[in-house]
C-alpha cells in the first residue's frame, strides 16, 4: 500500500506534471511566478485548496452523485457544477483565513488568490479523482502529488525568472514571451521523467 501511494504521488508530481505535461493551471503558473516568495505562497495555497477540495468533492460524489448514493440515481453529470460550487466556497474561505492570519501573503497573492477558483488544476484534480479513484486514500495521494507538482513547477519557474531579471533579453522577448519559452523548456525537461522506472 505504502509503495503504491508513493508511486501515485511521484507519477502525479513529476511524470504527468499538472502544468508541464497536462497544461492545467497555466494562468496562475504564468501570473504569480515573478518572485519565489509569492510563488511559494501560491503553491502552498493551491496544495491546500486542492487537498480540501478533493476531500470534500470525493465525499459529495460518493454520498450523492454516484448511483449508490443517497438518491439512488446516477447524478454524476452534476459533478462539474457541484465541484465548482465547493471549490469557489473553499477559496473564499481561504481568502478570509489568509486576510486574518497571514495578511502579507494575502497582499502578495492579490488578484490571483480569487483566481484559484478558476484554476482549472483544482477542478481537474477533483474530477479525475471522482472519476478514476474509488479509494479515498489513493485519491488524496493523487491530489497531493498533483498539487505538489504544481508547487514544484511554479517555484522552479519563479527561480528562473528571478535569474532572468538581470539578463539582457531582446526587446521582443521581454515579459511573457521569454516566460513561455522558459515554460516550454521546462516541459521538455520534465518529459525526461517519463522513463522513470518506479514501482
Amino acid at each position, binding site marked *: 500500500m505504502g509503495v503504491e501511494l508513493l508511486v501515485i504521488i511521484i507519477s502525479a508530481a513529476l511524470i504527468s506534471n499538472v502544468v508541464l505535461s497536462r497544461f492545467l493551471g497555466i494562468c496562475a503558473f504564468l501570473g504569480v511566478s515573478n518572485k519565489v516568495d509569492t510563488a511559494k505562497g501560491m503553491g502552498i495555497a493551491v496544495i491546500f485548496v486542492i487537498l480540501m477540495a478533493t476531500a470534500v468533492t470525493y465525499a459529495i460524489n460518493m454520498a450523492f452523485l454516484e448511483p449508490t448514493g443517497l438518491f439512488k440515481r446516477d447524478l454524476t453529470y*452534476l459533478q462539474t457544477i457541484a465541484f465548482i460550487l465547493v471549490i469557489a466556497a473553499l477559496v*473564499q474561505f481561504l481568502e478570509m483565513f489568509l486576510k486574518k492570519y497571514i495578511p502579507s501573503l494575502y497582499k502578495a497573492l492579490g488578484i490571483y488568490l480569487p483566481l484559484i477558483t478558476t484554476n482549472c488544476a483544482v477542478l481537474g484534480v477533483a474530477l479525475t479523482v471522482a472519476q478514476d479513484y474509488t479509494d479515498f486514500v489513493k485519491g488524496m495521494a493523487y491530489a497531493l502529488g498533483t498539487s505538489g507538482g504544481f508547487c514544484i513547477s511554479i517555484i522552479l519557474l519563479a527561480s528562473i525568472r528571478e535569474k532572468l531579471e538581470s539578463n539582457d533579453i531582446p526587446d521582443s522577448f521581454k515579459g511573457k514571451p521569454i516566460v513561455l519559452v522558459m515554460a516550454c523548456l521546462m516541459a521538455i525537461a520534465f518529459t525526461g521523467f517519463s522513463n522513470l522506472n518506479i514501482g
Partner: protein
Amino acid sequence: MDSVVIVSSIVLLAIIAIVIGIFLGVSSEVFKVKVDEKIVKIRECLPGNNCGGCGFAGCDALAEAIAKGEAAVNQCPVGGAPVAAKISEVMGVEAGDTVKMVAFVNCNGTCVNANKAYEYNGVKDCRLAASLPNAGEKLCRNACLGYGTCVDACKFGAMEIVDGVAKVDPEKCVACKACIKACPMKVISLVPYGKKHIVECSNRDKGKPAMDACKVSCIACGMCERTCTKGAIKVDRNLAVMDYNLCDDCGACSEKCPRKCIS
C-alpha cells in the same frame, strides 16, 4: 431521465448551496478583520480610477497611507482641492492652502532655436537618443529631445510635442510627475499653476558653448540675478534658477534677459 433525477438534482444543488452559504456567512464573522473606518471613508472620497498618479499602488494603498499619516491629505493629484477638503474632514485636519503645481518643460530649444550636432534618424525615443554621444542630436546637452517619451508617460493627455519640444497643457496637468520620472534629460519640473515668468532653459554651459548650442540658452551672465529685487532668481551652476516662493512674477528678469530664455 425520470422526474426523480430532475428533482433530486435541484434539491442536491440547493442543499449544497445553502450549506456553503451558511458556512461562508459564519466564517466571515469568525475571521472578520477590523478595517480602520478612516480607510474606508477616505477610500470613498478618492476618485477610484487607480491611476497611480499619487505614487502609491492605487486608491486603496493611498487611502491606507493617508489614514496612517504617511501621505498628505492632498496627495491625490486627480481629485485636487475638493477631494483634499473631504479627506481632511475625515482626518480632522486642515487641508491648508496648497498651491496647485503643474509640470513645465524647462527648454525652448525648438527646431529653429537649437543647433544640431548631427542628424539622428534612429528610433524616436528620448531614452535611447539620450544614451547617444552628446546626449541626443541637439548640440545642447540639457535640451528637450522632443521624441515624446513624456507624452507616452502622461496618462492625462496633458503633453504634446510642438516644434521639437514637449509642451505641457497646464489645464490638463495633474502634477503626477510621471513625465518628470520618464524624462532622461531631466528638463521637466513642477511650477506653480498660472506662473507667467519661468526660466525656459536647462543648459549648464557658460558663455560661448551655451551661446553656440541654442539661440535662447541661459549663458549664466547673471543679469537676472542683478535685476531681481526680491532675490528670487539666482545663477546656480551656470543656470538661472527661480525660487517660486520669493518670486512675485513681476517679469523684470524676463525683460532684462539678453538671451530671452525667461518667458
